[in-house]
C-alpha cells in the first residue's frame, strides 16, 4: 500500500500560467514599432516574464504583465506603453 489516494503528497507540475492569465493584470500594453526596432534583444533579456519572442520581437499578451521594463530599456524607443481599454 502506498497511499489512500494518488495525490496524497503536495506535488505541483510545471505549466505556463501558474499564476493565471497574468495578461489581465496589465494597465498598459507594450507595443513594438517594428519600423524602429533594431532587434537588439535588450527587451527580451530584461523581460521578467519571458513573453518576448527574441527573433520576431513579438509579445505574448496572454501573460505580459505590462510592467514596462522593456519600454524603459529599449535603446531605440521602439516600445510604447499604451493604455489598455
Amino acid at each position, binding site marked *: *500500500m*502506498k*497511499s*489512500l489516494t494518488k495525490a*496524497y*503528497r*503536495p*506535488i505541483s507540475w*510545471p505549466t505556463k500560467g501558474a499564476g493565471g492569465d497574468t495578461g489581465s493584470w496589465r494597465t498598459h500594453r507594450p507595443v513594438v514599432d517594428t519600423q524602429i526596432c533594431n532587434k537588439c534583444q535588450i527587451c527580451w533579456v530584461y523581460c521578467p516574464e519571458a513573453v518576448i519572442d527574441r527573433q520576431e520581437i513579438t509579445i505574448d499578451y496572454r501573460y505580459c504583465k505590462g510592467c514596462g521594463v522593456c519600454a524603459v530599456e529599449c535603446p531605440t524607443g521602439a516600445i510604447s506603453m499604451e493604455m489598455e481599454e
Partner: protein
Amino acid sequence: MKTAQVIMDTGAHAAALAVKSARVDVVPGYPITPQTSIMEALAAMVENGELHARFIPVEGEHSSMAAAVAASAAGARVFTATSANGLLYMHEVLHMASGGRLPVVMCNVNRGIFAPWTLWADHQDSMAQRDTGWIQYHCSSNQEVFNTILQAFRVAEQINIPVMVNFDGFAISHCLMPLTLPSQEDIDRFLPPYEPEWRLDPAHPSSFSNVTNAPEYAPFRQMLSDDIMASIPLVKQAAQEYKDITGMWDGDTIDTYRLEDAEVVAFAINSMGAELRLSIDILRQQGIKAGLLRPRLYLPFPAEDIITALPQNAQVMVLDRNYNFGHPGGILASELKSVLFGRRNDITVKNRVMGIGGIDLTRQFMAAEIRAMMDE
C-alpha cells in the same frame, strides 16, 4: 533463517548496527547526550567503508532534520538520531517530514528536557512531538531497538510516513545486553531497497509543497491523519514477517506479560516495560494477579488492541514518565482514558508520574507503587 550472531552490545550501538544493515544512504547527525554514540558509530562505519552512505556533520538538529527530509525527497534512505533539546529544536522540520510524506527514520534517545538541564531519561521530549504526524515506537530492550529500526524503515516506506524509534537514555542506550544479529541476507529479505514512487528528478520536474489553497490543504492533512491510522496493520505485518524471517518477536503494536488473568495491569512504555515484568513477578508472588500491557507503538495509539487485550474489570495502573501539563498526571493516562471511554466501562484507570529526569525505576519500587495505587 540464516545463521545469526550473538554479541554483547549497548542500545546505541545496536541502533547503529541496525541502520547499517538497513543499508541507509544518508545520515545527517549532530551530537547530544545520550544519543551521541549512535552518530559516532555511524560516522566511523561510513569512514571505514563498512557502511556505504554519506554522513553529514551538520551544525545543529534543525539542520539535521532539514538535510534528512531533503535527502529523502531526492530518493535516498535516510536515518538520523537525537535526544531531548535536539528533538525539540527539530520540531518545525518534523512537520515537514510528515506533511511531505517523507519516510525518514529517526531514533530519539529519550532524555528529560531543559529547563533545568538534566542528562537523564524521561519521555517529555518525544511526548512533546505527539502532534507532529510521526509514527512513534517505544522500545524496552537493546534487541528491540535493533529489530524495531528495521521494521520502522519498512512501515515508513510502505506508507510514506516518518517513524521515530524511541528508547531510554542510559538504561538502554548505554547498557550492555545480549544482541542477536540476523544475517544480512535475512535482513535484505525483510527490508527491500527503497524505491520511491516520487522524487526530485530533473527528467520529470515537479515541485514539492508549493503554497496550497484551503480546499487542497485540508485533504492533504486529512489523508495524513487517515494514513497514520492505516499504518497499524502494517506495523503488525512488519512484526510478524520479521518474526517469520528472524524468529524474533517483541510484540507488535503492544507487548503483554501475564495479562490474561490479570486483575491489576501495569501500563507503561519504553525501558519501564522490561523492568515491570520483574515487578509483575514480585506482585504475583505476593498473591496479586498482576500483568503488563506495554504499548510498543505509541502513535498511532493502538486503541483496538488495548481494548481487546485488557481483562474484564481490570484496574489499570498507568505509570507515566512525563507530565501532561495542565492536567493532573501524565499523557499516557489521558490517552488511555480517551480510548476506553464508552467502550470499556468495566476498567478503572489510575495514574502516577515517576522516573522523571532519570530517577531510577527499580522492580521493587514500581511493585510498591502499584500496590499503593491499588489502595487509592
